[in-house]
């Protein structure tokens, strides 16, 4: 070794080195605009697909529990022991209500009626509607988001409140209005309020009315009580009160959150929705990996001599790794940003329609998809990274 120092020692300014070589990496990527766009498009498409599908999935599940969400004042839901979901109630005897009120710890209990009914639209067609009947006095169970009219208007004779989507279904092309009349089960019903209820799972039209009217608007036989909504005198004892109601009456009594979970669980277990959405999500990930992986691999293969030249010059494998990861990070970040913006745009636009109202891009979904986008790009670049790592620098001397 000659005197004067180690020949491998070289004055390095690591910060500049990293930034400089990362800039080179990005310039290499931008230099092939077609592939750069292809990579970004692949991630954007996957992000859009994942965000849109997962958000709609959660939106649908949320819709399944919309009636429960719209009655937040009730802590306890009492029902027939066989009931698994709010969508399929089994009628209880009317006497149940008084017995629940007599259970120790119950502050109040009110009847709750839920049934499906048919409404004839102005075009003469029949449409499905969800009929909600609430306690005649307290009117507990009606959402407090009134667009027209007030809660008190529901105490008027033949009074019903409907949701905006239902109004547009019944009176297409017309401005929201009150005072119109409908025929329900050969009986007159007058729209006194427009209430912004949460979008429902099974019908676009939701009708709110007093319990006594609801039973007349539908033909549900002798027993008409769907649920009893109750509240514990002491909120901290809600679970114990629910257990007490169940034990004393032989009925099912659960806390609101539990019933919500069960309703969503019922949808997950008995419908093809999770499998269908799961398949689309899986396809989104696979398509992303395929597009990004193939394009990135092609990009690396076409630049393999340049990578070999960099290696020959003395660029270490670690720096090549950093350069490749910088390219991947750029593609992931920009692709994800575009996909997220497209998904947000979709929900902002499509969410205006009655069919898709309530669906929105959830922050949790955005975060989850960001992680997935990162995984997609990392998986897709792994093969290419191997090529960069193992490229023989002596390649540069071959013609």
């Amino acid at each position, binding site marked *: 070794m000659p005197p004067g120092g180690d020949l491998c020692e*070289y004055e390095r300014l690591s910060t500049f080195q990293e930034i400089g*070589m990362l800039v080179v990496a990005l*310039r290499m990527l*931008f*230099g092939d605009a077609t592939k750069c766009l292809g990579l970004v498009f692949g991630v954007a498409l996957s992000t859009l697909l994942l965000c849109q599908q997962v958000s709609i999935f959660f939106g649908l599940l949320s819709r399944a529990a919309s009636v429960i969400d719209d009655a937040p004042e009730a802590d306890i839901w009492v029902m027939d022991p066989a009931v698994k979901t709010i969508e399929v109630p089994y009628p209880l005897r009317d006497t149940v209500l008084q017995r629940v009120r007599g259970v120790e710890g119950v502050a109040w209990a009110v009847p709750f009626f839920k049934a499906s009914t048919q409404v004839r639209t102005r075009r003469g067609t029949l449409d499905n509607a969800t009929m909600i009947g609430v306690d005649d006095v307290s009117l507990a169970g009606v959402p407090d988001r009134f667009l027209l009219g007030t809660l008190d208007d529901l105490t008027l004779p033949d009074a019903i409140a409907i949701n905006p989507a239902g109004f547009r279904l019944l009176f297409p092309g017309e401005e929201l209005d009150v005072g119109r009349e409908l025929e329900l089960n050969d009986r007159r019903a007058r729209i006194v309020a427009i209430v912004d209820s949460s979008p429902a799972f099974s019908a676009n039209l939701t009708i709110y009315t007093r319990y006594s009217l609801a039973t007349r608007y539908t033909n549900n036989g002798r027993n008409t009580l769907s649920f009893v909504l109750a509240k514990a005198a002491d909120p901290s004892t809600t679970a114990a009160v629910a257990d007490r109601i169940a034990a004393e009456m032989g009925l099912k009594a659960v806390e609101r959150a539990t019933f919500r979970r069960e309703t969503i669980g019922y949808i997950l277990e008995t419908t093809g929705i999770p499998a269908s959405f799961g398949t689309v999500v899986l396809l989104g990930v696979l398509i992303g990996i395929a597009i990004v992986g193939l394009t990135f691999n092609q990009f690396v293969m076409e630049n393999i001599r340049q990578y070999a030249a*960099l290696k020959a010059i*003395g660029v270490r494998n670690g720096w090549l790794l950093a350069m490749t990861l910088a390219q991947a990070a750029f593609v992931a970040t920009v692709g994800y940003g575009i996909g997220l913006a497209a998904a947000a745009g979709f929900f902002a636009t499509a969410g205006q329609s009655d069919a898709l109202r309530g669906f929105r891009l959830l922050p949790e979904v955005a975060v989850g998809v960001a992680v997935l986008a990162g995984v997609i790009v990392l998986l897709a670049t792994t093969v290419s990274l191997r090529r960069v790592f193992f490229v023989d620098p*002596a390649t*540069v001397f071959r013609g």
Partner: protein
Amino acid sequence: MDHAATNTPPGAIAVRCVGVEKSFAAGETNVRVLRGTDFTARAGEMTFLVGPSGCGKTTLISIIGAILSADAGSVEVLGFDVRRARGGRLADFRLANLGFIFQQFNLLPALSAAENASLPLVAAGRSTRFGERAAAALLARLGLEKHLHKMPAQLSGGQQQRVAIARALVHAPRLVICDEPTASLDAESGHTVMELLREVALAPDRSVIIVTHDTRIFEFADVIHHMSDGRIERIEGKSIAPSEAHA
């Protein structure tokens, strides 16, 4: 340049290869490319390595350039035993001390002439600004001052080769290894490139090794090593002692 490589006195041995062996697997057979090759290059000289295709020239300069390992023998480059070093240490050695000029130029198509030429400095940790300034000065010496910001695709073959030369020299390496530097050029451009190489790359403490088939440029050689079948067959040149002439 202020990197820590030590100076080699003029005339001192810059590269010494003794008994270098290298074989490659080709299917089920093993092809011996280098068969106990001895090779020497001195500081301040332009050493040519010539011979027919497949005689082992490229393999030998790959080993000297520390990008391919020898199976046997000793390889000392600028006093550094490249056979004993591995991976990152070899990369650091190349970055600090060697410059490469490839037959295919291997410029990055997305970088301008100045950016391409600055790569060894940027890779060594210098700022891109510093690197491009140094590259611009060198490119100006090579007659490319009006083409600093042009992309490789906008340059002629001769101009691209000059950018490649600038990239090989920008960090003032002690040894420049050139693989067929004039193969892609016409006679006039090839002559110009060789004049530039001699003028810019060669210094009393620096060596240039050139692998070539191009007999038109032999006039630029100080020493010519004729290689055949994996061995140095004959050496000719100004500074060759009679005892060295036949390896």
